[in-house]
């Protein structure tokens, strides 16, 4: 019987080999890998956009900065960027916990804490972006 970070092999009542998976076990899927890459790529593009703005408007004064973020396209793009950031961060932190935290209970708790934090941050970003007065 082998034991992996995701569970252990054993035979069930009918003699079939099954894996007993821990609920906070490893999920090495293509989906999470793809999420991290796509989110990272979008963030890279958004970063370029930000840098371009800073380069063109340096030194940036506060009113023009706020003006720019008030543009509806910019608001959506920024919200998506933060969404991408939090998804990317989630996959990254999950990988770290899977690699270094052996105890399933501790790992599950850490996952929950990180998820809650990231969701809270996302709500905060929505509040930041949508409490601005609407652009003309």
């Amino acid at each position: 019987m082998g034991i992996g970070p995701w569970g252990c092999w054993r035979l069930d009542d009918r003699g079939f080999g099954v894996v007993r998976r821990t609920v906070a076990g490893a999920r090495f899927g293509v989906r999470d890998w793809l999420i991290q890459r796509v989110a990272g790529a979008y963030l890279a593009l958004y970063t370029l956009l930000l840098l371009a703005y800073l380069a063109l408007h340096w030194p940036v004064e506060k009113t023009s900065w706020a003006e720019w973020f008030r543009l509806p396209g910019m608001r959506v793009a920024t919200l998506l960027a933060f969404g991408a950031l939090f998804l990317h961060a989630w996959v990254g932190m999950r990988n770290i916990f899977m690699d270094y935290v052996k105890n399933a209970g501790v790992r599950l708790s850490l996952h929950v804490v990180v998820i809650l934090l990231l969701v809270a941050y996302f709500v905060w970003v929505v509040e930041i972006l949508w409490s601005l007065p609407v652009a003309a």
Partner: protein
Amino acid sequence: MNKPRPRHLDLFTIALPIGAVVSILHRITGVVLFLLLPVVLYAFQISLSTTNHYKIESYIYSGIFKFFIVIWVMAYFYHLLAGLRLISFDLHLGTHRLSARRSAFWVLVLGAVGALMIGVLAW
């Protein structure tokens, strides 16, 4: 009769290949970026606020707060570079051992130069 070959994999004492250094720094900067998120979000909020937070702004743009923002930006820049290297591997570019070593070297150099420039810009 055949003893298993000794293996020495204590990561803290062996000489890490350059790719391993890039990789662990990538992971460490990732954690730093995550942990300092509230600081960055707060600065973002203040930067967009329409009311005059003069006292808060003078606090933010100086001292320990600014220090953390700058650290975050430096970590972001390095993490981005190392991430681009990883994406190029996903696209099967530069996966040959020597190319990978060269790209690892450049990630470290550009990361350090970038951090220096960011530090100079900030102060």
